[in-house]
């Protein structure tokens, strides 16, 4: 068993290293030695490289945190925004707003996506409440079916409105379009992650169920809504700005909890850091395989994430430390 401080130490060391690699690579020529002497290099750094790397860090960190919150609050290890219909509903929201108001701003699209994502997750909760809680695998399975139904609806609307090609962009995430001025919404997800950090203990108690929460003086319904809203917003913002990135919210919290046990508040920084690092690695891989072209990061993470997920599934479950 590792302590979360040890995991944090490794991740904190890795992060700046990966950040430097991430900034160094890309289609255009970039040399660190020119940053102060050459104004073109400097503007490339500020306009393209730094925003992209920051966007990856924010996305990786907050998606992992969103997955962890879902897992703690709904008490199921195999949940993430993809598996409760949040991502698919967010795409539905953007699609609808794009069809009705093509000129809408990113902020308007994000708001609409968040609201629809929230609706989608609330509907899933109604389903969830009726499922036997001890059948751990049943819930993600139903979640996958539920998400697929929404995705099918989105695709149907796409076919009917000739917007199928747009959907492909939101269902496959990559950071190739990130520039200064086109990713800043992602900072809001960072804000959401902070909110979660401050409420971590209360969310953990809410995860123990309504009766225990109430007797411990926690407003269960309020905590539930806060966690749903934060997860919906994180998901929606990521889908609007970069697209869907599967598995990160599933894999990272599971790795951390295997290594350091289930403690939301203590593990939160580890989860955020590991999420950021994992996504940085995958995006770097996507950029160096076939330069100057890019392999979408969702594809890379999909492959890596599936393998880790299968490993987690087939490994004998360890006894959870507290």
């Amino acid at each position, binding site marked *: 068993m590792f302590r979360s401080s040890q995991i944090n130490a490794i991740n904190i060391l890795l992060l700046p290293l990966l950040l430097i690699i991430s900034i160094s690579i*890309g*289609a*255009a*020529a970039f040399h660190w030695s020119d940053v102060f002497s050459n104004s073109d290099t400097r*503007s*490339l750094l500020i*306009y*393209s490289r730094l925003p992209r790397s920051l966007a990856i860090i924010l996305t990786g960190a907050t998606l992992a945190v969103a997955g962890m919150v879902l897992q703690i609050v709904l008490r199921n290890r195999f949940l993430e925004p993809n598996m409760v219909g949040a991502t698919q509903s967010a795409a539905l929201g953007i699609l609808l707003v*794009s*069809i009705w108001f*093509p*000129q809408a701003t990113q902020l308007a699209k994000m708001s609409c996506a968040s609201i629809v994502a929230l609706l989608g997750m609330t509907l899933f909760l109604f389903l969830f409440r*009726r*499922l*036997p809680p001890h059948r751990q695998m049943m819930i993600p399975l139903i979640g996958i*079916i539920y998400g697929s139904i929404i995705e099918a609806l989105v695709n149907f609307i796409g*076919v*009917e*409105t*000739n*917007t199928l*090609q*747009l959907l*492909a*962009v*939101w269902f496959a995430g*990559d950071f*190739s*379009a990130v*520039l*200064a*001025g*086109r990713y800043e919404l992602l900072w809001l997800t960072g804000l959401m992650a902070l909110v979660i950090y401050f409420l971590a203990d209360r969310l953990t108690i809410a995860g123990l169920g309504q009766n225990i929460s109430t007797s411990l003086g926690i407003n269960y319904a309020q905590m539930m809504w806060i966690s749903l809203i934060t997860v919906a917003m994180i998901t929606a913002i990521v889908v609007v700005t970069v697209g869907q990135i599967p598995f990160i919210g599933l894999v990272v919290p599971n790795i951390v909890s295997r290594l350091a046990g289930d403690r939301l508040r203590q593990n939160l920084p580890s989860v955020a850091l590991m999420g950021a690092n994992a996504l940085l690695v995958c995006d770097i891989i996507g950029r160096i395989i*076939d330069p*100057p*072209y*890019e*392999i*979408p990061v969702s594809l890379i993470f999909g492959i890596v994430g599936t393998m880790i997920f299968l490993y987690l599934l087939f490994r004998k479950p360890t006894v959870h430390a507290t």
Partner: protein
Amino acid sequence: MFKSCWKPLALSILALSLLSACGEKNTQNSSASNTTASGAAVSGPTVSVNTARGEMNVPENPSKVVVFDMATLDDLQALKVPVTGAPKKVLVPYLQQTLETVNNTGTLFEPDMEALNALKPQLIIIAGRTAPKYDELAALAPTMDMTDSGQDLIGDGMKMLDTYGKLFKKEAEAKKLHDDIQNLLAETQQVAKGKGTGLILMVNAGKLSAFGPSSRFGWIHTQVGVPAADTNIPASPHGQSVSFEYVQKTNPDWIFVIDRTAAIGEEGKTAQAVLNNDLVRQSKAWKENHIVYLSSASYLAAGGVQQMKTDLTNIKAAFTH
């Protein structure tokens, strides 16, 4: 308590999946029985045509034609050949008039077999998007697969035009259109000569893909003769995902834009907003205002008469300007 709620849900999912399985089987049965009933045998005068599946004999000048290809529909509209059925829900503005008069036969990907049965077409013309359904359709009526090679859009487009001229006894009209496009192509090649390199970009919801000479938009390089700014782009049906930095680095003299967002906005407007950033603004193409927007028909009806004319005219105008 939980169980009582769970069972009906599971049962209904099971029932639904069974139902959908049945549905599939039914359509298969009906198309199979039709083979024997109507038969795909051709009687009467025939004409030999070249298709993607080789030479075949089809009825000469058939009166009831169903078309599953927008380029073909474009050609037949230009040749004034009446069409009985086509997938109606396609957004190619200049085809709307023809589409209003035809019977709906499903979509390019999912032909409506019942509607086709009712229409009893004498000839079905399909291409790329409908090609996987060839066997089902061929069982119903003589079916021509006019999928192009993907390497020589304009050459294939003209061959297709000639084929339809022969098939529908409109040789004179087809020849005239053929010559028009030939001349337009020659003029475009003339004005494009020595004007620098080009890069073909598809803009889709804020993201970019690049297309090279061997792609389906490669005719700009291979036919019109604009040298590729990046000769290494591998062929891929959806292009290569690239960043804005790539555009700055490639630094083309001309950028040809396919606006995939056009379906939900004004053609070219959204793409323009996406490209308008510090990195693309550094390219020679942007500085010289050398951005050419291709028509949405260039991917929906590639190889049709009107599409070739529109895009060649636009490109020629951009180079002469």
